C-alpha cells in the first residue's frame, strides 16, 4: 500500500517537472492580447448594407428569440420606403452572448464580434443604444443586401428591379 502512494506521488511530480520545461500558455493580458477566433460570440453590433444603409429592418425576430429579453426596439417607416429601427437597445448586463439573435436575423444585421472587453464600473453603461451598436461596415456576409431580394419597392429600386424578379405584371393585358 505504501508503495502505491509513493508511486502516485512520483507520477504527479514527473508531470509537473515535465511542464517546467515547456513554453507557458499563460499570456500577460492586458499587455498581451489573446487571439480570439472570428466566430467568437462577443459584443454585438448592427451592421450596414453594402450601400451603407442600416441593415436592420426592425423585424423584431432577434427580440423574440432572445432568451433573456435584453433587446428592445421600435420599427419606423422611412421616407425612402425602407423600414428600420428608430430605437434599438441591448442591455449587455443581461445578455448571455448565446448568439440566438444573430441566428434569427434574416438580414445579417445583428452580429456577434470577437470583442469581449466591455467591463465598466456602472451597470447603466451596459445599456447600449442604436448609435453604440452600429458599425459602418457589413461585417460577415459582405455582399448580402436584404432589400435586393425582398420584392418591396424602395427609393432607387422599383418593383421588379430586385434580384430574380420580373417587371410588374399587367393585369389589364390579355397577352400571354
Amino acid at each position, binding site marked *: 500500500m505504501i508503495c502505491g502512494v509513493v508511486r502516485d506521488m512520483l507520477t504527479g511530480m514527473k508531470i509537473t517537472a515535465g511542464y517546467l520545461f515547456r513554453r507557458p500558455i499563460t499570456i500577460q493580458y492586458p499587455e498581451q492580447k489573446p487571439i480570439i477566433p472570428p466566430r467568437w460570440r462577443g459584443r454585438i453590433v448592427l451592421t450596414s448594407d453594402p450601400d451603407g444603409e442600416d441593415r436592420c429592418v426592425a423585424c423584431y425576430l432577434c*427580440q423574440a428569440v432572445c432568451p433573456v429579453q435584453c433587446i428592445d426596439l421600435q420599427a419606423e*417607416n422611412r421616407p425612402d420606403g425602407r423600414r428600420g429601427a428608430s430605437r434599438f437597445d441591448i442591455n449587455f448586463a443581461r445578455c448571455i452572448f448565446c448568439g440566438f439573435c444573430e441566428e434569427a436575423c434574416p438580414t445579417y444585421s445583428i452580429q456577434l464580434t470577437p470583442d469581449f472587453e466591455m467591463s465598466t464600473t456602472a451597470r447603466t453603461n451596459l445599456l447600449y443604444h442604436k448609435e453604440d451598436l452600429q458599425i459602418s461596415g457589413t461585417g460577415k456576409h459582405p455582399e448580402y443586401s436584404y432589400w435586393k431580394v425582398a420584392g*418591396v419597392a424602395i427609393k432607387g429600386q422599383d*418593383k421588379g428591379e430586385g434580384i430574380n424578379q420580373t417587371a410588374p405584371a399587367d393585369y389589364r393585358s390579355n397577352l400571354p
Partner: protein
Amino acid sequence: MSAKIKITVNGVMHEAEAGRNILQILLDLGIMLPHFCYHEALGAAGACRLCAAMISPGAGKPARLEMACMTRAEDGMIVDITNPQAVDFREKLIEELMLNHPHDCPVCDEGGECMLQDMTVLCRHQHRRNRFPKRTWRNQDLGPHIHHEMNRCITCYRCVRFYRDYALGDDLGVFGSRGRVYFGRMRDGALVSEFSGNLVDVCPTGVFTDKHFRAVYCRPWDLQTAPSICPHCSVGCNVLPGSRHKTLRRIKPRRNHTVNRFFMCDHGRFGGGFVNADNRLTSARFDGAGMSLDDAITQTAERLKEIVQTHGRGAVAAIGSPGASLEANAALILLMKTLEGRFAFFSTGAERAAHKRAAALIANGQVDTPSLPEVEQADFTLIVGGDITREAPMMDLAVRQTIRAGAPLFIISPQAGKLDAFAKAARHAALPEQAAIVSNIAQALDHALMTGQPDPFAGAAASALATAKRPQILCGATGAGGIALVDAAHSLVAKAVRPERPCRLVYWFPAMNSFGISLARNDESPDTIKQDVENGRIKALTILEHGASLDSEWPDDSKPMKSCFTIAVDAIAGKAATDADAVLPCASHYETFGTVMNYEGRAQRFEGLPLPRPVTWSSAEVLLKLIEALGAGEAINRTEYHDLFEIPATMSSLIGTLAPDSEGLLIRSTAAVREVVG
C-alpha cells in the same frame, strides 16, 4: 338544435351537427386541416384547394381526394386527413402557392399572425426549389387606412368575397386572368366601405394591412391585450385593443357569436386615437392650482360640503354620460344621493325621454329585440329614424346580409344614405315627420293587400311587411324623432305581430351606454338642469366624462355657467375640463374596466389594457373616492345596481359577476323573457 350525424375522422368517431361542411366540423373539433379560402362567415369557395382530405361516403365505399370545405358532411362519412396522398397533395399545393410569394416576411406586418406562414409550416414546405424569377405587382394607394402589398397574394378570393359579396361594396374587385390575378380598385383611391378594415383580418396574407398600426408597428406577439367593448356606438362590438410601450397600437374585433361575430366597422377599428391623444388629462387641478388627485378630491369634497351647507338641498347637481360605464354613472348617482343633489344625463330632454321609453319597452319585454345574428335572418326590414350606416355601422352590415338573401328593405331617413341603393324604396323626410310616415304604414297594413294606396311608399312597405315571415323594424332612438317616433315604431310592430309570426324591433341609441343610463331611476331632464345652472339655482355641477359624451354644445361659455362651481371627471381635456374649477382626471375607456349595455340591453363587461397610464383610476373609482372623502363610504357597500337602475334585483347581482368573454346578460324584467334568455 339541428340533427346530429356521426362522422369518422382519422379513425375516431365524432358527433357533429348535420348540414355543415367537413372542414368546419374539423375546425370545430379542434382538428387543424390546412385551408385558406374557407371562412366561417364568407363560406366555402373551393378556390385554394388546400383543404384536401381523403373522404369516403361510408364504410366499404372507396375514398377519394376531395376538398373538405366543398363537401357536405353526411352521416357515416369517413375522413382521413393524414392519408399520404392528401398530405403530399397539400405540400405540393403550398409549394405552388409560394412560387411567386416574395421574400418579405421581415418587413410584412402580417408576420406573427399570418395564416400563410402557419399553413406553410403545417404542410411542411421548407425549401423553394423553383429558381425562376418571381412575378411582381404594383401596389395601389387605398387611402388612409389600408396598406396594399399585392406581391403577397395567394388568390384565395377572401377579400372580394368579403368586400363585394358580404359587405356589398363595389370599389374593390378582381382583375386579370391565369397567373395574373389582381385584387384592387379600378384606380388608386380610398376604399369607400365602412367595413374596409376587415380586409386586414380576412386576407390570410399581408396584402391588406392596417396603415395606422404600420406607423407604430410592433409584432402582435408583443402586444398586451384586454377584452374590451367598442365605445363608439350602441351596437357594443367586442374588440381586442392591443398596446405596447404605454401606447395603444391597434384595435381588432374579438370573436363572439351574439354580437359582432367576426367583424367590426372602420370607425371602431381606427377610432382609438383618443387613448394616445395629446389632450389627455394627466394632472388634477383645483381652483386653478395643480395638485395630486388625492388632494384635489379632498378639497372638492370640502367645497361640496360647504355648498350643501350654505345653499341646502338641490344646490348640487350632476350630469352623467352615455359614453361612460354603468359603474361610473352609478357612482355619480350615488354621489348625488349622498349630497341630496339632482342628476341628469347628457343630451336633450326630448331625446332622453325617447331613450327612456325605448329602453323601457325592451327591458320590460314588450318588444322582441333581435341580436345582430338575428337581424341577419330577417326577411323584411324597415329602417327609420336615422342613418344606420353612420350611427350603428355593424347593424348596417347585418342588414346587408338580409339584402343578400333577397329580403326587401324600406328606408325612411333624413337624407340619402348608403343603404338606399339596396332599398326597395327609400323616403327622405325630416326626423319629426317620420312618425307620421310610420303610422301611415301601420294604417296601410290594415288594407295591406288592397291596391291603390294613398301613400305608395307606405303601401309598398305594408304589403311587403304583411307577407314577410320574419320581419323587423329598425328604429333610431337617437335624435329629433323623439318619443313620437319610438311609439310609432312600437305601434307598427304591435300591429304587425301575429301569433304565428313575430315582428322584431330594434331601437338603436346614440352612444355606447345610452341603454344603461336610460334605466336610471329618478333622473331629471337635462334641460331643467341646464336651466337651473343658468338661472343660478344650481351652485355646484359635477360633469362625468364629457369628452366621451355627445353633447359638445354644453357646457358653454355663458356667464351663469361660470358662476357655478364645476367639477369635471374626465379623461380628455375637452370643453368641460378646460373650464372646470376642479378637474379630476381618470383613465380612458380602453384603460379601464366596467359594464355597458348595448342596444338590446345586453350588459357586457370589458377589461382595461394594462397601460402604465397617466392616471390609474377609472372615473368610477375617482367618484367613489370622492364619496369616501365626503364620509359616506359605507353607502357604497350598501348600494346595489337595482337601487339606482330599473334592473331586476336578481340580475343586479349577476352584473357584477359577468365575464368579458361571456355572451353578456340581457337585462329583462319579465319572467317570460328571462326564460327565453336564460
